[in-house]
């Protein structure tokens, strides 16, 4: 972080390279909108640059970035809450997912699994999606994830358990297809 504050271009580049896509991914899971997610991740980095001169090494940079991203995404969701999530937004989730899959050059079957899982995830409440993303996809410990979400470890576990059970139920109908596609 000291190198970032001194304007070390390499340190800044490494930091952005490592965290940009996962942060956009988290924000996208939360808001369901890729362009909003990118704005949020960008804003998180801008805040980090501003903070770099008076950085206190109390927290890991990654935890700090995720927490800021999480809070910014919550703000965005609250702003949007007044207006109902329209059909076009829902469509955008699927489009965004499909576009990212194409970039990753995966097989059609794998893309299908990804799409179905993402759609299933989008049906979960936002906090359950966030908890699963932090613990499963970002490999955070329960304490780190609870810090990011500003909740207790017990509350996090409750969200995780309900979220994963919910996903199982949603995916139950297509389970055989998904397992076939996976094989």
């Amino acid at each position, binding site marked *: 972080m000291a190198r970032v504050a001194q*304007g070390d271009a390499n340190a800044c580049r490494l930091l952005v390279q490592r965290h940009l*896509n*996962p942060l956009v991914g988290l924000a996208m899971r939360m808001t369901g909108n890729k362009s909003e997610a*990118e704005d949020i991740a960008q804003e998180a980095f801008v805040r980090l640059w501003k903070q770099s001169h008076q950085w206190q090494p109390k927290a890991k940079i990654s935890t700090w970035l995720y927490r800021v991203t999480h809070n910014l995404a919550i703000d965005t969701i609250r702003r949007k809450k007044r207006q109902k999530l329209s059909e076009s937004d829902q469509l955008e989730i699927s489009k965004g997912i499909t576009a990212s899959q194409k970039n990753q050059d995966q097989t059609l079957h794998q893309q299908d699994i990804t799409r179905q899982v993402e759609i299933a995830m989008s049906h979960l409440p936002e906090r359950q999606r966030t908890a699963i993303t932090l613990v499963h996809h970002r490999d955070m410990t329960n304490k780190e994830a609870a810090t990011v979400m500003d909740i207790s470890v017990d509350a996090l576990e409750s969200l995780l358990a309900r979220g*994963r059970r919910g996903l199982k139920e949603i995916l139950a109908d297509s389970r055989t297809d998904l397992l076939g596609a996976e094989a």
Partner: protein
Amino acid sequence: MTSTSLSSQDKTKLTFLFDCYGAHPHRWPEDRREWASNLIKQYPEARMLRDQALELDNFLDKAPAEPNSSHLMHEILAQAPQKKYHQDLKTNLLCQLWPFESIWRPLSALTTAGLFGILLGTSSPSFLYNQDVTEIESAYLEFSLGDSFSNNFPEGEID
């Protein structure tokens, strides 16, 4: 005595662990890792519960939520803290002159010595020139500076 099936308490706890964290031990909380691993080794029922959780883990792994947003890199880095060129130039020159850490040490020593010299030169303390000339010193001065002494050597005494 060993039982062949999981106790209901263990089953409930293990199911909750898998429900929260999935089947991979690296995601389990450290304080429950060893306990769960032992149950899995010991009981087929525990392994069955683990395999069920593994299925959902595999599905989740297919949707890693990492969209490619590398096009933002340039814009984000443009706002990052920048090095100042003049500051760099000065730093580099100083580094060449003094390649060790803490340039202030030799600089402060040099400055102190210089200031002391100037102070000494300008104030000219009396002890530097008002000294009592002893008899031996005056004899030495007469010997080394006077011109009458050398002319009075008696002939033949010096080879």
